[in-house]
């Protein structure tokens, strides 16, 4: 029974690391998209002036 807990810990770490990485990459992608949209808006505003 104790080994079952260790097995769950191990799989929890494995799946957790995968999820954490995908989550972190997705957030980076969203941040970059937002940053690019802001930059494009700044350039367009500059052109209007």
């Amino acid at each position, binding site marked *: 029974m104790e*080994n*079952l807990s*260790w*097995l769950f*810990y*191990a*799989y929890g*770490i*494995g*799946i957790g*690391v*995968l999820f954490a*990485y*995908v989550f972190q*990459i*997705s957030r*980076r*992608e969203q941040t*970059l*998209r937002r*940053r*690019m949209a802001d*930059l*494009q808006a*700044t*350039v367009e505003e*500059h052109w209007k002036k």
Partner: protein
Amino acid sequence: MSTQRATGSPAVPLWLGGTAALAMIVHLYLVFVWVPTESSMGIIQRIFYFHVPAAMTAFVACFVGGVASILYLATRNHKWDDLSVASNETVVVFEAINIAMGSIWGRRVWGIWWTWDAKLTSAFVLFFLYVAYLLIRRATPVEVRATVCAVICILGMLDVPLIYLSNRIFRTQHPAPVIGGGPGSGLAPEMLFTLLFGMCAMLLVWGSMVRLRRRVAQLERAAEDLVRRTNEMIDQGI
């Protein structure tokens, strides 16, 4: 590379992401419910079905990243550099999983978390080589970045056969190979199926991650390009 291309279609197609998620769920069912329990180690042996596919995926990622780095050096086409960084970053992820799960298994079966035998040490070296790769990539100027990183990738690729063969060449505490390990080695058909299924599931997850990370690399470069052009316009007073 155009901004349009970098921000257009989804990085991970639904079929790939969906298949990867489904395969991983089926794999967990096989591991926890379907596969028989190994007689000598008991239930803790089931760590093997995630530990080994994670290692194999890291090896595949090493080779893909290394070949992409060499192709970038040969062609100077940024698409290879994007693939290289995406693949090499996943080496750290899968090696971390491999080492952490192996360590938990070692604690239950050997009674220790870690030992400096050839297999474990070479895996540890691989992990830190790619951590170094990521740190150096951030620290070096763009002009020399690809060359420095390609050298690290080649070292990483050389380490992979050493890890794979270490428990065949040296006497290690790590268990002897169960596939292609000579007479007396081998797995029961259900165990072999679960292992191979796990490798396929892990490769699908890896493929999705690489596509997502490659998109981020494309966006990073597009953003840098946009900042540079904006600054140029401001400097020229346009």
